[in-house]
């Protein structure tokens, strides 16, 4: 484990690297607080509302951790939104089919859901590493097929009528005000950051993205590492799907549409380079928060979805242009 002194230095470096993003985040909080007060709705910049934002973005956040690894290797995974739908549907179907005891079938359902994510990730990884299909194409195909699969097995209808315990993962609060899913996303972010920065696997991921040929000629097992990166991304997306399904209390084949774009947006806003080799989980977290706070802030002051989409597009552009100015790509 990294020593304590190091992690302080790490925090400082993180703050310095993400100073522009963090100030954007603070600016957002101030702006929405001020605008909210004018409309008679104070309290946007509060711990409670931040936890609420984090809670809402937990699903995207878990996917974003996996996506960060994929993008750092120079790849992309467009299938994450479809995996969310498929895994949620699988979990709900198994719980409904099994009946009682509900806790047992919940575990079976979740296990099957995570396995389906692993399988989808493994297929993507194999297509990219063994058949040399560009990640964009391979995962685009998977995105379509997996979405279709989720619709096929449910006949396009959501699976509801689930036991109350089904909602535990998504809605339970460990202590009042602290949802279980927020703890889970924080745990995954910390684990992801340590894996990327302090393990051999993370170093190899960064090396492959930085210069794949040099990495291979330095003995990095490029194929294996890339395969695992897609596998991890698939499993995390399935976990996100299970949490979302639990929160909704149903398994719907229609959820997660365009999630891949929201996730890629968060990763890119967080400073990870789409050409690979450069990026961090911390950045992804901040990027995610910038986007999520923006969305909920706009809702707070009464701007509707269409307006939010326009603003989000501008923010993504702004973040990437800022990144270019800093000299990275």
């Amino acid at each position, binding site marked *: 484990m990294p020593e304590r002194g190091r992690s302080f230095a790490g925090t400082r470096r993180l703050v310095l690297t993400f100073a522009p993003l963090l100030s954007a985040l603070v600016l957002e909080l101030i702006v929405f607080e001020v605008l909210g007060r004018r409309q008679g709705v104070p309290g946007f910049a509060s711990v409670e509302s931040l936890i609420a934002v984090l809670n809402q973005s937990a699903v995207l956040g878990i996917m974003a951790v996996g996506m960060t690894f994929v993008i750092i290797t120079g790849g992309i995974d467009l299938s994450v939104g479809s995996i969310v739908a498929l895994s949620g549907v699988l979990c709900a179907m198994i719980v409904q089919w099994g009946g009682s005891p509900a806790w047992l079938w919940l575990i079976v359902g979740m296990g099957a859901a995570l396995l389906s994510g692993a399988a989808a990730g493994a297929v993507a990884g194999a297509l990219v590493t063994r058949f040399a299909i560009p990640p964009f194409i391979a995962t685009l195909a998977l995105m379509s097929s997996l979405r279709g699969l989720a619709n096929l097995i449910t006949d396009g209808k959501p699976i509801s009528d689930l036991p109350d315990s089904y909602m535990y993962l998504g809605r339970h609060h460990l202590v009042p005000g602290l949802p279980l899913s927020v703890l889970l996303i924080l745990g995954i972010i910390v684990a992801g950051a340590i894996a990327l920065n302090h393990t051999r696997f993370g170093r190899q991921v960064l090396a492959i993205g930085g210069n794949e040929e040099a*990495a291979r000629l*330095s*003995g990095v097992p490029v194929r294996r590492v890339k395969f695992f990166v897609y596998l991890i991304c698939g499993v995390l997306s399935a976990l996100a799907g299970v949490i979302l399904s639990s929160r909704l209390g149903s398994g719907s084949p229609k959820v997660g549409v365009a999630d891949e774009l929201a996730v890629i947006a968060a990763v890119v806003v967080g400073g990870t380079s789409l050409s690979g080799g450069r990026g961090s989980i911390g950045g992804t977290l901040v990027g995610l928060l910038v986007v999520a706070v923006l969305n909920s802030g706009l809702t707070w002051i009464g701007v509707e979805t269409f307006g939010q989409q326009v603003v989000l597009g501008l923010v993504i552009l702004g973040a990437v242009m800022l990144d270019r100015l800093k000299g990275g790509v």
Partner: protein
Amino acid sequence: MSNNYVLEMKNVTKRFPGVLALDGVQLNLRPGEVLCLLGENGAGKSTLMKILAGAQPKDEGEILLDGVPIEIESPHHAQELGISMIYQEFNLCPFLSVAENIFLGREPRRGRTPFIDWRKLYADAEAILQRIRVDLDVRRPVSELSVAQQQMVEIAKALSFNAKIIVMDEPSATLTDHELKALFELIKNLRRQELGIIYISHRLEEVFEIGSRVTVMRDGKYIDTKDVIDLTRESIIQMMVGRELKDEFPKVTFDVGKERLRVEGLTRYGAFENVSFTLNAGEILGLTGLVGAGRTEVARAIFGADVLDAGTIYLDGAAVAIDSPKEAIRQGIGLLTEDRKLQGLVLGMTVRENCTMANLSAVVRGLFIDRGREREIASQYVADLNIKTPSVEQSAQNLSGGNQQKVVLAKWLFTKSRVLIFDEPTRGIDVGAKVEIYKLMNELVRQGVAILMISSELPEILGMCDRIMVMHEGHITGTVTRAAATQEAIMHLATGAELAHA
């Protein structure tokens, strides 16, 4: 002998930062002749031709076309003036037809409409191909043609500009014997049409077959121009090499130990065939030859980076199966690649991260990388190899070429390899850093490491190697000992002559 030159280049000088690439070079070309431009790698041939093609401006000197002084402003301008280049890499669009490629950007149109007059396009293309007596369907896409046929299309394209001068850079490098004959026929045809041809090749036998005169360059300087009739193979090599070895090679000889690496019958079709040699502890074995002879390919195959079609690799006497660089490193083989930026370093990573890249397991404790240990190791190499960097946390891209190369060296030293393959270890590095790298090689050899050094620079090969292996077109043409080696002998082997007494 007539003196009506189609092209005269006088006193051409070109400076790059820190280098005098061309130093008052001259070149004259008559219509209807083939002038062979010869010189070692780095002699300045390419720079001179780039100036002629308008790809680079000259600093000083004069260029006369048909006796008239001209300034060549751009590649496009050069084409308009009637100067065409046939590079090794063709500039063709693979999915367009032969005719479309010949007239790319100059397609005939129907009157003043924007529509292409296809009939005229095909007729014009056929007329040009007939002029050089090449039989090709002008409607076929270029991607369906052989390399030789694509070359014909390039030449046809040059003629469509009404070229007076055609420069061919290594046109024979990728051709079969049969195709080469066809090319020579075509060149003779062009000569009859009074075109001037500048022909660059490393194969001396071709000079005697189609050359009229020879111009030799060395180290950016003009050496001499002579009629081919007055020359022998030996006299050309003498002119090309002609330099004395200075004392810039601190070679130390050690007792040769036991066999470290032996390869038998290594073959990778299309790259090299039946390559066998032995490399012993305590020696530096040189591997040289012209660019494209297959040297790098042999190194990559031994290292597991490319697949072998046949052959066996023995390490310390035992046959080993190496199917990946990872396995090669595990077996104790290291490869310093030819191109440090593309293959040696992850430029965006720090000196520290690059140093430990090939041996990460040595700095991993439990699940995690021990960065403190990494820093110590990198700092040690920075001190030992005299790497000039503000800190080990500096990004590798901010280092100079010589210091980058030392970081790559550090990476391989840290793997504690017993066999190290150095592919062009001193390319693009200044003399001071070169000597440091040579001294490091001495130290490695003293410790019992066996080194295979690939280099195109003959002085370096002669100065540092105990034995020298020469390759020509995928085959080893001979091995000479340090005592018996001369530049002339190596050039003979490198240009394809067999050694009478090995």
